[in-house]
């Protein structure tokens, strides 16, 4: 087990940020910590790194108790902060070299690692640039390079794609997949469910400092009662037609709003053909018709009664 968190409690005055949090992360996983803002993701990371004092519980990394002075453990961890954490006065290369130098003292070895890290994030052309000359996306990439240059076995990325353009986001996500392929264990926190779905092999959903669901994305989706969602751009659907739709076998719920007809299927069921046939039979005029599989947002919605981005 790379990370084992047991009954972690962290309070800020009367507010409970982490409420008996339990997590186990296995070697080689890309583990997603998904939750809305304020759910306790960053607090959990800070406690894991011993940056924060916690009130109760324990954090073990690589089988050893984590502490501020556990330097041998810290050497194996790479951290990419939510906010860009670099020196404005140092160039791209110097920044990566500086942070890598806190882990690797051998200059010759470090030179190679720095070069690889810069190549990994695709900043070769910007090596001599100061951070203020970089765009937001390039800055995020530099932030990642600073966190991974020393080749850690455990990499923690705390919302690394916040305020990043789509091109840089794809590049960052592909980089993280690559790190996983190279054998690193990755903890990835985000409130973007699409990213977590694409990237993570296992996911824990956090809400109010507690893990409310945990598993692979398939396991998580199988926890909920609704299945595929069929959306039809339909015009002038009558109330009687809606009632008839609700009566179809395997249909869990039907909504009609703004000329958009949404039909939710029961778990495991597929109603696309049946719904299409029904609309044709009823002579309802329609534009597009498409189906969506349940998302992690649906999982979150069903468990907590609110959307992830509320």
């Amino acid at each position, binding site marked *: 087990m790379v990370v084992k968190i047991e009954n972690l409690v962290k309070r*800020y005055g009367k507010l409970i940020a982490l409420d008996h949090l339990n997590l186990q992360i296995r070697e080689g996983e890309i583990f997603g910590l998904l939750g809305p803002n304020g759910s306790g993701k960053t607090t959990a990371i800070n406690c894991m*790194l011993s*940056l*924060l004092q916690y009130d109760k519980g324990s954090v073990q990394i690589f089988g050893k108790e984590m502490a*501020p002075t556990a330097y041998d453990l810290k050497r194996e961890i790479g951290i990419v902060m939510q906010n860009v954490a670099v020196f404005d*006065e*140092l160039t791209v290369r*110097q920044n990566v070299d500086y942070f890598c130098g*806190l882990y690797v003292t051998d200059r010759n070895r470090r030179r190679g690692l720095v070069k690889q890290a810069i190549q990994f994030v695709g900043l070769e052309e910007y090596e001599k640039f100061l951070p203020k000359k970089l765009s937001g996306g390039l800055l995020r990439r530099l932030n990642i390079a600073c*966190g991974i240059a020393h080749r850690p076995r455990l990499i923690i990325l705390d919302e690394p794609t916040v305020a990043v353009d789509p091109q840089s986001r794809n590049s960052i996500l592909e980089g993280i997949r690559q790190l996983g392929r190279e054998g690193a264990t990755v903890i990835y926190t985000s409130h973007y469910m699409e990213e977590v779905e694409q990237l993570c092999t296992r996911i824990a959903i956090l809400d109010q400092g507690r893990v409310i669901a945990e598993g692979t994305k398939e396991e998580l989706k199988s926890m909920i009662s609704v299945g595929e969602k069929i959306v039809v751009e339909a015009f002038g659907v009558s109330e009687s037609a809606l009632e008839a739709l609700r009566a179809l076998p395997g249909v869990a719920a039907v909504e009609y709003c703004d000329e958009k007809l949404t039909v939710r299927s029961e778990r495991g069921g597929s109603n696309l053909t049946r719904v299409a046939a029904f609309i044709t039979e009823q002579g309802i005029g329609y534009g597009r018709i498409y189906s969506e599989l349940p998302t992690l947002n649906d999982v979150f919605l069903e468990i907590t009664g609110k959307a992830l981005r509320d």
Partner: protein
Amino acid sequence: MFWHVFRYKIVCMLRDRLTLFWTFLFPILLSVLFYLAFNNITAEEAFQKLPVAVVGGSDAAGLRTVMDETELFTVTEATAAQAEELLARGEVTGVLTAGDPPVLTLSGEGIDQTILSSFLDAYEQTRATLGRIARENPQALADGVLQALDTGRYIESVPPGNGADVSVVLFYTLLAMTCLLGGTLSCADVANVQANQSARAARQAASPAHKMKLYLGMALATFAVHFASVLLVFLFISQVLGVAFGAHIGYILLLCFVSCFASVTLGAMVGALTKRSENVKVAFLVAFTLVCCFFAGMMSPDIKYLVQYHAPVLSYINPANLVSDGFYALYFYTSFDRYFVNLSILAGFGVVFGLVAYLILRRQRYASV
């Protein structure tokens, strides 16, 4: 790792324009302003020779010789009519007409007129004494009584040690301010190892670098840059502006060194003591430095003397005063006692500040990041 941190901290400081301005340029600009302001005052206070008209032609030769020797007067030889006209136009302070006794005509009343009148009294007294000696004991003149006679010195060049030019106190205090402003730099170093101050600090705190090693690497770099800035300002003030610091260069450098140490540790202590943001800490340190400099006499040397007279304890706990008074003692006193008292107290402060900072930082953990 220590030298790795040290090296990059130096690079950061030398590339930070704001740091460069406040550390190097600001004290130099301020010293130039001081120089321009106080140089004029000193020039106005300098003694100007008094214009005097002498009437009497060859009869006034003796009087003229004595007047030249005093270096008090600018003498214009004139006829009685010309002298009267010069006096009326206010171009001379007075008119001396040779005779027995010489006659003095003054343009009015004032210090210049008093000087001229006093000179004539002294001249007359000496002339009468010599006349009497010549009449009653001429041999005495041959025995060198003239050499023994005090003919009086009217202008004295005051050597160091007698509090001649108090404006140097202003420059000493300015240098003290430069020394103390190092606290603002080291305060930032502390913030850089406190995980709750910034994401960058958190990243460093999450690394395997020992917190104290990290801090000491930064602090030593800060000290080096700060000490270099103090030396540069000292060189500028002493060599370019010509402010006198005396000949004890080794002691001056030692005082600069100890002052920089005390200010760097003061900044570290303030940085470690409070959880406020770095900007608040820096603002406090700047305000503290300026208040200390005010009481050390940066606005007026009289304040320094007032504090020393009415509240001497304050002058011993005011780091700015300890630094400026150290320079003062080196320049004005022949003994080093006062200098070493100041130096010892400053060093003591430095050690105490450093210890407090170390004890706080050593086991600091955070309730929130």
